[in-house]
């Protein structure tokens, strides 16, 4: 199957899966049964649609398959008799559930609940809301299918046993819980952002899925500027995608990217989204990161970038997010404004907290190289190389060590 057809297949499933999980859950009252039934339907769809093509009404196809699977799963459990009746009716009428679009948001907030570990939130969101198969998620995260399946089983068990509600959070918790949801979309994007198309036929582009998810949240919650901020940020990043990989699959850093290959239409789109966010006058970490990405996007060259403006934005960002990773990223702007020596002095104190983070060592190596401290730079690059499994990043680091 061609990449375009694969993308169409992915998009068709993604557009429907989350709503069907949500409506089935409402119908049968058992999250595990609903989620498993849709997962089985997605696996069937991938198999059948690849040979027969995408049906005219992919949503109806998935819904019928999911309901049939749910019926099979429920038959063995007598106490679900009522649910069985409702399901049979549903299949007979084959009707679309009401307000299906809104259904996905409570499901998403439940899957991103802080009572679940972050990696479980990611895996569960990808499966239940975005409609990926366990195999696709496992390949994206470079873990075995068994490990990932266990992670999902455990997360679902906790949702059911601990009574994690699959509903919108109370108003007083909304901001904090939204941040958890946006973080999951952000992590999902980063997971996909550093990888090229996989070797496997139906590998998913997680960056694309994350962009879709950010769009879903921003559309559903138009009064949340941070949701718009994340959408703008991911759109800016996505616009650079065509220039981010060399022909051999290695990563091309911002400095060396051919800016002519950036997607101008996407950049304009991101600008407009960010403007809408800024109009609400409630800044936050995703809006500020988007503003930084916007500065890069509008610069004609690496040298011609308004680094002072970027540094100012980083200082504002620190007020919302003083994490060591933010401080590390800020150092890149410091290097351009005040020089690599000062940037290195800012980076060194982060060593304890970021020792296991490959980009800490890679950033440090770049600064050391600028300062002509080659041996130390090579040592730091070697450390970075040992810490990442991503092939594109490994290629870049190897080239730097050889150069």
């Amino acid at each position, binding site marked *: 199957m061609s990449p375009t057809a694969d993308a169409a297949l992915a998009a068709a499933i993604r557009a429907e899966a989350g709503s069907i999980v949500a409506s089935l859950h409402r119908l049968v009252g058992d999250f595990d049964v609903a989620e498993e039934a849709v997962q089985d339907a997605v696996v069937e769809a991938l198999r059948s649609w690849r040979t027969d093509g995408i049906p005219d009404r992919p949503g109806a196809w998935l819904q019928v398959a999911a309901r049939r699977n749910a019926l099979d799963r429920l038959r063995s459990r007598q106490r679900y008799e009522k649910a069985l009746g409702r399901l049979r009716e549903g299949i007979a009428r084959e009707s679309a559930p009401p307000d299906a679009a809104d259904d996905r948001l409570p499901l998403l907030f439940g899957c991103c*609940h802080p*009572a679940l570990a972050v990696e479980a939130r990611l895996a569960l969101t990808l499966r239940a809301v975005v409609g990926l198969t366990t195999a696709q998620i496992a390949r994206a995260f470079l873990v075995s299918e068994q490990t990932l399946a266990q992670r999902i089983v455990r997360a679902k068990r906790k949702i059911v*046993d*601990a*009574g*994690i*509600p699959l*509903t919108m*959070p*109370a108003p007083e*918790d909304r901001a904090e819980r939204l941040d958890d949801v946006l973080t999951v979309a952000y992590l999902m994007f980063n997971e996909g952002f550093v990888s090229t198309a996989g070797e496997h036929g139906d590998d998913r582009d997680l960056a694309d899925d994350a962009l879709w998810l950010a769009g879903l949240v921003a559309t559903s919650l138009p009064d949340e500027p941070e949701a718009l901020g994340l959408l703008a940020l991911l759109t800016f990043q996505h616009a650079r995608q065509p220039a981010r990989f060399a022909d051999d699959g290695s990563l091309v850093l911002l400095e060396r990217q051919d800016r002519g290959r950036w997607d101008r239409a996407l950049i304009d789109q991101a600008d407009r989204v960010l403007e809408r966010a800024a109009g609400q006058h409630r800044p936050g970490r995703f809006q500020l990161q988007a503003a930084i990405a916007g500065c890069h996007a509008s610069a004609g060259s690496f040298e011609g970038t308004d680094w002072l403006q970027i540094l100012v934005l980083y200082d504002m960002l620190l007020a919302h997010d003083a994490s060591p990773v933010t401080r590390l990223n800020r150092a890149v702007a410091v290097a351009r404004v005040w020089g690599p020596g000062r940037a290195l002095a800012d980076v060194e104190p982060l060593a304890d907290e970021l020792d296991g983070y490959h980009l800490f060592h890679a950033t440090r190596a770049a600064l050391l190289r600028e300062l002509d401290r080659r041996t130390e730079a090579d040592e730091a690059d070697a450390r970075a190389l040992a810490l990442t499994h991503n092939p594109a990043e490994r290629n870049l680091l190897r080239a730097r060590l050889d150069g």
Partner: protein
Amino acid sequence: MKYVLMFCDTPALYDEVDPADAKATYQEVFDWFGEHHAAGRIADGGAELQPVTTATTVKSGGDGPVVVDGPFSEAKEVVGGFTVVDVPDLDAALAMARTWPPLKYPGVSVEVRPSVDHSGDM
């Protein structure tokens, strides 16, 4: 759904807290129970425990149970009390835990665990 809220702290904490401050917090805890009790969220008041120095543990041993001095674990944090609440879901239980007055002190935590529902058992 029923949840057990386990209130944990470090034994050293109350030596460090000013007695007047501790007294005020005790009143806040009393009010906390009063408020949630009035709202029908307390299924079982539970118990406030004596300091961990009073704990004795019976452990399984090769030749049968063994009695030892001290708490069951070497952890720095110890359970100081518990209560059983009955609320619709985890978010409601977490909202209660979040307002537990002693959380203003370092080392204090509230573990929230659903209790096993035996109502469907034969």
